[in-house]
């Protein structure tokens, strides 16, 4: 899924009669959830890594090394990754939605 392909999709949507707000909504929701999905995967990997280090450290006798994962941190990470997704979808979608459909479709 390249940027050019997405631009072409914006052109198709415009040619079919999508309004600027439709295009923004489609791409922001999509990229927001992509960001959130990335956040969830990152979170799982991060927790596993932290817990793994904790277990290894405990086995080596470093009982003071404990992975601390707060709910605030989890919520914060998910919200942040969603936001990054939304922002990274908003700007290209907005610049694409402003062009006339033919200019966007030419990007093949």
């Amino acid at each position, binding site marked *: 899924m390249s940027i050019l*392909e997405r631009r*072409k*999709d914006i*052109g*198709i*949507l*415009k*040619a*079919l*009669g*999508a*309004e*600027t707000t*439709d295009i923004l909504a489609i791409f922001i929701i999509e990229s927001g959830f992509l960001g959130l999905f990335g956040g969830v995967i990152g979170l799982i990997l991060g927790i596993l890594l932290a817990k793994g280090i904790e277990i290894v450290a405990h086995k080596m006798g470093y009982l003071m090394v404990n992975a601390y994962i707060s709910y605030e941190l989890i919520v914060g990470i998910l919200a942040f990754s969603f936001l990054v997704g939304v922002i990274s979808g908003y700007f290209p979608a907005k610049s694409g939605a402003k062009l*006339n*459909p*033919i200019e966007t*479709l030419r990007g*093949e």
Partner: protein
Amino acid sequence: MIRAENVWKIYGRGEAKTIALKNINLEIEEGEFVMIRGPSGCGKSTLLNILALLDVPTKGEVYYKGRKTSLMSENKKAIFRRKISGFIFQQFHLIKTLTALENVELPMILDEKDKYYRRKRAKKLLEMVGLENRLNHYPHQLSGGQQQRVAIARALANNPKIIFADEPTGNLDSKSGITVMEMLKELNEKGITIIMVTHEQELERYASKIIKLRDGEIIEIVKK
């Protein structure tokens, strides 16, 4: 229905200036089957895009039902593209990540039709173009001719009054091309205005009006 008045399209400026359309004047009546024909690079696609409100002229005006389209807002133009016209491209331009059924539903989603209605209508349209066994196929699983038939079904989704077609047979073998032309002819007989671009002289027999273009200028308009 659609009238172009002194339409010019000029790309670039100064030395790099290219004139794609030169002082185009034409009128298209409801129910016509118009063919814009000329060699490649003569500006025929540019003219079609301008008439379909996908592009804007550099100078001049396009009227739809007597109204200046240059005064239409972007949203009004979107409504025109969605409800009044349907566009068929040479390269089909289906959304690759959607199935045939979903591609046909798309204009109806944009028009906020309810789910039950649009499913039913999309199925009916795909049946009409002979693809009832391909509803859940993705574009890459379909032949060129089948993809173009999906595109025709999509163009018909919101009951358009006008179909714009840019070389709709250009990427098809001759048999699929004839199927597509016969479909357009049938739609025209049902009262839909067809405006089509082609470089193939033999397709002229389908048209009720032929606009011949060369180097961005109309050289002849033939009414049959």
